[in-house]
């Protein structure tokens, strides 16, 4: 298995607060890696750093896109990171709420298409071809997440669970090799969570994507992850297989210390 993402000693400070403290992490192809930890541990901040939304204070982030040379991406703009092949969802859903469901997914195709202003106005054969491809791919993705029938509804009118799945479809539309999911099961009922479980496994097995997942639902995490990394107060405190993590005394203590969730 080859490495796709390698993070070394990542550190992120907000003024005096150190939200991430020398965290290292690696994701290899075909893996589902879970990143867990109590609220405020720095998980989302970690995502923000590797997707370019925040510029890390220190550390290195390298990616190894399949079939390409390695690239050091710390300091890259978010759109470049996405173009390289890492896509994410957000903990507090950030859909384009006044756009339709299908348009949301089509936005994901932006970085894989190339029509410019002139092309869009003239709408030549190449533009049309790209546009049709975009529509088809988007429909295929909606089918995958089970939202086809909502395609032309406004995104904000979707039920909560469906919005989370739409975020996943939108991220997949950017053709990533690594998918980053930030608490995808938050607010879902058990049935929806089960469907999500199947969807994530399917994305890995059929589409061959690697997945890095932040999640509080322990059942889901234990079920699908190949490896789990635990963070607390910005530090990485443990890493291992689900079984090893379940029995790790440090992890148990971290979670007993914070009874608010998970």
């Amino acid at each position: 298995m080859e490495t796709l993402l390698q993070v070394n000693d990542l550190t992120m400070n907000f003024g005096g607060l150190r939200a991430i403290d020398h965290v290292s992490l690696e994701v290899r192809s075909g893996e589902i890696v879970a990143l867990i930890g109590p609220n405020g541990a720095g998980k989302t901040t970690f995502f923000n750093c590797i997707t370019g939304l925040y510029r890390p204070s220190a550390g290195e982030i390298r990616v190894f896109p399949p079939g390409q040379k390695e690239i050091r991406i710390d300091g890259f703009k978010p759109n470049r990171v996405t173009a390289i092949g890492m896509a994410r969802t957000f903990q507090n859903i950030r859909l384009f709420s006044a756009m339709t469901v299908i348009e949301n997914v089509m936005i994901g195709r932006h970085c894989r298409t190339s029509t410019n202003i002139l092309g869009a106005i003239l709408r030549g054969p190449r533009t049309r071809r790209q546009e049709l491809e975009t529509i088809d791919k988007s429909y295929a993705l909606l089918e995958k997440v089970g939202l086809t029938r909502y395609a032309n509804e406004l995104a904000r009118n979707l039920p909560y669970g469906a919005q989370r799945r739409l975020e996943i479809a939108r991220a997949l539309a950017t053709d990533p090799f690594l998918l980053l999911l930030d608490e995808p099961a938050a607010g879902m009922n058990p049935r929806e969570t089960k469907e999500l479980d199947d969807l994530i496994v399917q994305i890995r097995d059929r589409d061959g994507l690697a997945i890095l997942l932040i999640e509080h639902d322990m059942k889901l995490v234990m079920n699908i992850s190949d490896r789990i990394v635990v963070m607390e107060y910005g530090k990485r405190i443990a890493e291992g297989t689900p079984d090893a993590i379940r029995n790790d005394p440090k992890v148990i203590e971290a979670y007993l210390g914070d009874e608010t969730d998970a």
Partner: protein
Amino acid sequence: MEYFLQLFSSGLTRGSIYALIALGYTMVYGIIQLINFAHGEIYMIGAFVALIVSGVLTIYGFSGASILVFAAVVAVIYAAAYGYTLERIAYRPLRGAPRLSPLISAIGMSIFLQNYVLLAQTPDFLPFPALIPEFEFIEPLAHIIGSAELVILTVSTISMIALTALIKYSRIGKAMRATQQDMHMARLVGIDVDRVISVTFVIGSVLAAIGGVLVGSYIGQINFYIGFMAGIKAFTAAVLGGIGNIPGAVLGGLVLGLSEAFAAGYISSAYEDVFAFGVLVLILILRPAGLLGRAVKQKV
């Protein structure tokens, strides 16, 4: 040297007026993250009410500094009432709306109020009765600082000290600070956030009206449009000091007033207004957090 001191005192005077208005912008922004575009209009309304009241009284034969005090009190009451109503009508129904909505509503309100005064009163400049008396004790310094300037500096200093005390020590001041920190939490601990917002608008309006009355009697004439430029300059002052930051607004006002006075005095006054805009654009581009503000990263 004398010219320098003259410019200095006129800059300080201007600056303290900017500071008075800027405080309203900064307080409202600190609490609901809205540029209250119509704030300049509240200042204009304050000045106008003072002009109407003192004008009527003068015509009916009253005179002296007591008119000024009375007119100022009425102006302050009216400005507060307008500020309160403005928030109720144009902003409160838009809590939680997309960010552009309250801003457009604010611009609409500003245009509305200007034209309301234009239509109900007059499009022309009206002379403002000279109400500030000439003090004798200032005679030896008259070539540097006039008595109007002295009054403006004194009144605005007192207002700012009063504001600081209010925010620091009073109950409502504490509630304001809590709301500014975290509106959601403030609501949870039982603070009536809507009331805090109303009070913020009222306080801001009172300060603006004081500024309006002072400027009216200093410059000597006003019209319906004076709020526009003053509003922009005061906003510049607020941004310069770091928007949301109360000492910042005062500092920003003084810095802007002084630099304007010196630029106009030593360079040219044709581009005086461009100067304020230039400062605004530069500060937003180079240091959007302002002189005293701290840069915050937007949470994702």
